């Protein structure tokens, strides 16, 4: 039964059909699958499947990324209410777009993935000053600051990730809080993330979810 559920859910997500995805989930619950199994055996593997699809299939597109993340986040949110015990949270992330940048799509995709991957996310919104990224990361106890920037000047300028790095250094937080970045300029220059002081980057929102989880896990074991 589980195999069929996974197949039908993956098909619905691939087709960006949210209603069909929820129908699969509701039918699975009605047939006795636990909320925990829906999340850990259906939803998270589907996100991981999309990650590998993106690598294999150049036709995987932004609409699929967006819907994979949205469906995963919504299903997870609903299932968490039904969990017998609260799930183990992998870590915490504060996320926003860089100062001067209002492009919010990538941020939204990353947030959806992280929620489904059991990472708590605080959305700082758009056009976020570096000081706010750091202050909120400290207040929230974040492992990672995720900064999205779609324009060259917001990705590389002095008020974006560079300033966040400087503030972390100044406050002695570099060991506790990592910086990840994403957005179009980083796709055109894959080494750019280093020059702005980030610890990692991802080419798309779905891949960013996995990269952030890996970074959190590496930080907790080091």
């Amino acid at each position, binding site marked *: 039964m589980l195999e069929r559920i996974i197949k039908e859910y993956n098909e619905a997500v691939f087709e*960006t059909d949210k209603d069909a995805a929820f129908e699969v989930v509701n039918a699975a619950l009605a047939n006795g699958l636990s909320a925990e199994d829906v999340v850990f055996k259906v939803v998270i593997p589907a996100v991981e499947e999309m990650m590998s699809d993106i690598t294999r299939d150049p036709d995987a597109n*932004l609409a699929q990324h*967006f819907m994979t993340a949205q469906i995963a986040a919504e299903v997870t949110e609903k299932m968490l209410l039904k969990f017998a015990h609260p799930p183990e949270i992998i870590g915490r992330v504060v996320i926003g777009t860089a100062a*001067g940048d*209002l492009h919010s799509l990538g941020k*939204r995709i990353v947030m959806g993935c992280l929620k489904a991957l059991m990472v708590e996310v605080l959305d700082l919104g758009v056009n976020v000053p570096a000081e706010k990224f750091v202050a909120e990361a400290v207040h929230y106890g974040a492992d990672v600051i995720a900064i999205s920037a779609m*324009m*060259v*000047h917001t990705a590389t300028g002095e008020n974006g990730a560079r300033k966040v790095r400087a503030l972390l250094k100044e406050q002695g937080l570099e060991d506790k809080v990592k910086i990840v970045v994403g957005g179009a300029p980083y796709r*055109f220059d894959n080494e750019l993330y280093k020059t702005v002081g980030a610890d990692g980057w991802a080419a798309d929102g779905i891949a960013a979810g996995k990269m952030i989880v890996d970074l959190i896990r590496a930080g907790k074991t080091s």
Partner: protein
Amino acid sequence: MTPLDILVAAITGTAAPRIPVFCNLLDQGARELGMTQREYYRKGEHVAEGQLKMNRRFGHDNVWSLFYVGKEAEFFGCDNILYAEDGSPNVGDYVIKSWDDIAKLQVPADITAQPAWAETATCLKILREEVGATQPICAYLTASTSMPALLMGMDKWMELLMTGPADLRDHLLDLCSQFFQQEVAAYRAAGANVLVYSTPFGTHYFVGKKRFESFSMPWMKRDLAPGGVGGIVYYCGMAPFNEVIPAVMDELDIAIHYVSPLADLAEAKRIIESRRRQDGAAYLTCGVIDDIQLIKWTPDEVRAEVRRMCEIGKPGGHFLFGTGVMPMAIPEANIKVMLEAAFEYGALS
């Protein structure tokens, strides 16, 4: 031959001394005139003067009438533009904050009577008078399927598109398409002759094949039908779109393609040529340099890339060398090296 003659020769496949060389210098105009971005973009005279001065200094073939992309949102009531001194102005506040706002949205009956058009018209008038007879004048027009991103933000637009009520989505698209049809006519009437049709949803990078066919293509047809495709350049906001070129040529009849630096230029040229092989056909492959790399490339690396692109593009003709939106962080020396190399390797003698 004038730059305009050279462009026409490249499109029609007739003899010319070199390929056309486009360089999209926009925000650099403020620096050129020693102004802040806000001051620079306040007046059409400034933008025209900036374009003309940069054009004289660098010697590229085209001038632009574009102020900044978010300007189109001003026609729908946006009055908050976020300026930066090191990059492009951005929409600072979206006019659609909730789906309810879509019902209140209106397309002006005559966009050329709007304050948002006045400075663009001034800019175009100056460009037309100064260089209209000799140089291509570019305009930037956002497709109906992408305009909602300027009005409500890309994530909210994606949400409405993918999960919202179809009638509301179509109403918004209808307004955006009406606006596009007016806008393209206004630009043509004002003297713009290279009309860059910015359509990120017209690529499989944004939407899959099925949605491209069922959603993007019908709306693009609707945008372009009344005015035709004369001077229209297919551009997907730097996203690769090689796989849709056959459909764009066959169904929309667009013959000029501004190929993404992330795409295989040789493949794009092959696809375009295979569709337009008959003698006398007008078409153009625009090879676009990765101008984010231009920020850090050495002069030798710049020259090598320009040479590589020209070697791919020149055989068989119908080729233009171009740039993306040229971030301000690109050193001026690299702009000069790039253009010198494009003229050298783009020679057709």
